[in-house]
């Protein structure tokens, strides 16, 4: 009877113990699954975030490169522009002062022969014939001998040439404009025009003298 009661008790204990053990296993398994799930999600997040981070950093590096290059390019442009602008204004100053010097030159004795040469040069370029000569107001007062120049031109060109002073005046610091009688063709041999024609040479020479390293 006692043995039987003990046997029953052992059976009851066994049922309880098995249930306890199975319960523990179920919960342990659930915890294991839970931890694995959390780890899996963390791993997924890490992988996704690392991919995203790589993109972010690549874009940042590209942007950084752009920012740096842009700042440098802008500075170079500004620096070059400043230097070119300075050089340009210096050349303009030289041209302006060349005009002033030539203006002074028109007041010298030597200028007369230069003016005559400019007229003759223009006449020859026109190929002679009946031509009108324009001077500025100051040069008109020099009484350039147009007949003498006509003769010289006729001789040099082998063609009768007749020059006559225009009633109109040329603009500028000096020199002359030669026109055909009908005014359709003209050669501008004013000093202003000569300067403009030689502007490129003046610029090159000025640059060589003033800006060469």
């Amino acid at each position, binding site marked *: 009877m006692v043995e039987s009661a003990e046997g029953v008790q052992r059976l009851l204990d066994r049922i309880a113990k098995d249930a306890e053990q199975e319960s523990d296993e179920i919960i342990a398994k659930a915890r294991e699954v839970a931890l694995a799930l959390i780890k899996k999600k963390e791993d997924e997040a890490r992988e996704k975030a690392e991919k995203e981070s790589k993109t972010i950093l690549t874009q940042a590096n590209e942007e950084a490169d752009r*920012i740096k290059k842009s700042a440098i390019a802008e500075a170079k442009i500004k620096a070059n522009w400043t230097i070119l602008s300075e050089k340009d204004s210096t050349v303009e100053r030289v041209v302006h002062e060349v005009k002033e010097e030539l203006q002074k030159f028109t007041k010298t004795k030597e200028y007369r022969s230069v003016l005559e040469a400019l007229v003759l040069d223009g006449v020859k370029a026109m190929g002679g014939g009946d031509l009108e000569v324009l001077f500025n107001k100051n040069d008109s007062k020099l009484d350039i001998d147009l007949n003498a120049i006509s003769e010289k031109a006729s001789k040099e060109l082998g063609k009768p040439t007749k020059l006559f002073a225009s009633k109109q005046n040329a603009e500028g610091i000096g020199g002359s404009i030669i026109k055909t009688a009908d005014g359709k063709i003209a050669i501008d041999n004013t000093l202003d025009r000569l300067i403009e024609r030689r502007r490129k040479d003046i610029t090159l020479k000025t640059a060589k003298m003033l800006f060469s390293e």
Partner: protein
Amino acid sequence: MADETFKRILEAEKKADEKLMDAKRRAMEIEREAEAKSTQAHDETYEKIVEDAKRKADEVVRKATEEGTAEAKRIIGESEKTLTEIRANVKANIRKAIRSAVDMIVAEV
């Protein structure tokens, strides 16, 4: 007596079943909690790594801006030095350049 024993055994099995049911409920609860926790862990991990990358990216851009500005400043400084040299050279030689240009014009005639 056999009935009593049988009753006790049934009782014990019932308790055992209840315990197992409790364990299963608890397991389901743990898994549900894990689901929520895993989403949170996912988001936190993702945020942490991405935020870190964003901080690094900002630093890269900030550094580049700083370096670009410094380099630009150096270039402008160099150009100002060049400008000073040009002005000194112009001051010393401009009369010569003007004379030379005038001579070139007059010589052409």
